[in-house]
């Protein structure tokens, strides 16, 4: 009986793939606007135009011939992030650090020739399935000590889902040793539900079970309060407002010095956030956006 009860609860509260597509994505986002989110270069342009805090762009390259020229400018910085504008799932991102004029990727030294080859590969479309792509060279975000206290490696980020500018659900994605520094749930990262009103961390979901502590460091997660939470929420609302997308996922990071910053926006935010929060999106809509509870936009 209990199982049947729980299955019924799942059916009544969770938004599945079919409903997400038909009632959240399609009626709220126009197909031609997807690229504003999918292409990080375009997304960044919109955010910069609207003075949304995001990592500073040092340079962009879309032609092989311009690599050397742009490199001359950006190589003055001590830390760089090189990423493909149309890459997905964190692929093709190269984080560089300079020590005594020598570049390092993690602890491994890397010479300029290898960096140029990586940039060329991005432009060739290695990370965008043959489509030619553009390279973004950005400022490195130093994760706030709140995160490094829980687990010292990788780049943790927040995902906030908004419907017509109203935040519905939030999740913190933390890397683990299993996820190899990536905060992706598919790759063994942790998804931690967040109470969006208080910024309090709920339990962590590792793809199999809910945990109260980080599996590697053992640090307590549940019950901690995210710093700058109200600023995080405001920033996500401001970001949603400057995109013509009414249902979207906003990805943020908190920099040790600069505070909350937007990394990217996503038109097809994943549904695992519901498991991390132990709450269905339908419930969240009833709670935070009751005026949109009648999810029958589809025509």
């Amino acid at each position, binding site marked *: 009986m209990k199982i049947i009860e*729980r299955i019924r609860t*799942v*059916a009544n509260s969770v938004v*599945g793939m079919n409903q997400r597509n038909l009632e959240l994505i399609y009626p709220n986002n126009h197909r031609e606007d997807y690229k504003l989110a999918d292409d990080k270069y375009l997304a960044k342009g919109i955010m910069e135009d609207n003075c949304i805090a995001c990592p500073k762009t040092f340079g962009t390259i879309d032609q092989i011939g311009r690599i050397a020229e742009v490199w001359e400018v950006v190589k003055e910085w001590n830390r760089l992030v090189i990423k493909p504008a149309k890459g997905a799932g964190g692929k093709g991102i190269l984080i560089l650090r300079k020590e005594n004029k020598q570049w390092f990727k993690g602890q491994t030294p890397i010479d300029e020739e290898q960096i140029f080859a990586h940039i060329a590969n991005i432009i060739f479309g290695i990370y965008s399935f*043959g489509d030619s792509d553009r390279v973004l060279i950005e400022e490195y975000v130093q994760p706030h000590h709140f995160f490094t206290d829980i687990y010292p490696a990788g780049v943790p980020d927040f995902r906030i889902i908004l419907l017509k500018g109203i935040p519905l659900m939030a999740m913190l994605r933390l890397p683990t040793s299993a996820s190899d520094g990536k905060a992706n749930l598919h790759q063994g990262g942790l998804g931690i539900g967040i109470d969006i009103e208080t910024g309090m961390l709920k339990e962590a979901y590792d793809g199999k079970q809910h945990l109260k502590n980080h599996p590697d460091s053992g640090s307590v997660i549940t019950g901690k309060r995210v710093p700058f939470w109200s600023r995080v929420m405001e920033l996500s609302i401001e970001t949603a407002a400057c995109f013509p997308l009414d249902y979207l996922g906003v990805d943020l990071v908190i920099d040790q010095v600069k505070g909350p910053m937007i990394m990217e926006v996503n038109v097809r935010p994943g549904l695992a956030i519901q498991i991390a*929060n132990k709450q269905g999106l339908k419930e969240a809509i009833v709670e935070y956006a009751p005026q949109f509870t009648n999810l029958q936009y*589809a025509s």
Partner: protein
Amino acid sequence: MKGITTSRIIATSMIMIPLVLIIVRLWSNQHHVFEPGHQYDVNYQFEIGKSDDEYQIKTYLPLSNERQRVSLKNQNNSNRGTIMIRNGNKVIEWKSSNSNEDSIDVNFEFIGEARQYEIDPAIRLDELPREELKSFLRPTEYIQSDDSIIITKAQQLASDKATIKEIVGSFYEYVFNMPSAQTSALTDAVTALHLNRASCNGKSRLLVAFCRSVGIPARVAGGLILEETSKKTSHLWAEISIGDHWVPFDALNGHFAEIPANYLELYKGDQFLITRSKNIAFDYTYVIDKTRINHFPNFALFDIWEIIDEAAIPAEMIKILLLLPLGAFLVSVFNNIIGIKTYGLFLPVLISFAFFNAGVIPGVILFSVMIAVVAAINYPLEKGGIQYNSKIAIMLIAVVVTALAVINLLHKTQWLNASIPLFFPIIILTIVSERFARKTEEEGVGQALNLYLSTLLVTLVIYYILSAETIQNFIMTFPEIICSLAGLNILLGKWIGLRVTEYYRFYKVTSK
């Protein structure tokens, strides 16, 4: 709300209109689609040369029974034969003193069903046959069940076996494994055993002789194997009385306790299909035409069978074309209702078509080996930083080389018939490998392998659905059904419920 109703009305009418049309067609036409796809038109054509003497010709006509339906058509002969029932067989006999050349034409229609019999394993040899079956134990001229060589062999084969099923199985096995001879000459049971080589008539007589020698009633039965051709060869098989049935066994063509749909039963007992006076010049042919019965011409928008028959368009091509939408619909049911993901919508359908040609087992092997090769070379290519297009091209070369190797291997193990057209399957499997490579790139080998397994599962399910003859016949006969499929797709496209697998995925949402 309004939008939803509109699309629902459209979808419902798209589903219903073809169904109504199909019902009208079913009513207004006499044929029945669910019956076997073919009936046979059989013609006995006898030519009699000039003769001064009287002559006599006798042959058998089929009787309808629980597995064959026969209807005799007009005989266009000046000389009408006399029909009588003799020993349970229907005999037709012509007598004439006509000195001119003459021809006899007998024509009938046949619809048959395959039959398989279960032999009760409890029946033992020591149960005595009923009185009326005693005559089927006696030796005859060609079935020498009293010959010592037959008796010795039969006892050797039946030793330490008690049930009829085991004994008959052992006899059948022996006769079936005996080399076949391509001859229509009469071979008796003893000769067949001596030569260790026989055609249908020798094998059937030997099997019957074995049975009779140990006390199991048996007889030979004669008829024609129907196929679209003209021929002179008739066929003989054995019938063994087990329980209350005469159970058919064809030890030449490998039918154990079964009779195929295209076997026309003409007579029981060791008879000649045609007996005639020796003094005449005589020639005969059995002309057999396959005709279609799942044909519903009235109110048909497209009569596909007619197009195929008249314009000589290969049925295979139209069949594939019509099965494509059904396959795609099934895949989207798997994707959107069940929640099993696949490589796109059309690929599982195309892969299952590839299995049509290559066969399921060789197909799955070919498919899996190709995928394994792509997975194996992906890693070094990625490490080497090879650009995407070049990487895919290299994978393609590896896939082609592998395909050639696998085909060679399957061919040598005789799993694959060399004449099977493999161009289409290989092209499809190559495309699949590319998709797999792409997925590997996007989400890693683990995710790609997952997708491979779920695609394989879905492919096998739709393969078995699409290869079902009833479904193929139905969609060929009533192609308007694809409009209903479009309607169903509209409903499916508006379906917002959770996918079956999502109940499992999100079950933890409810944990407290």
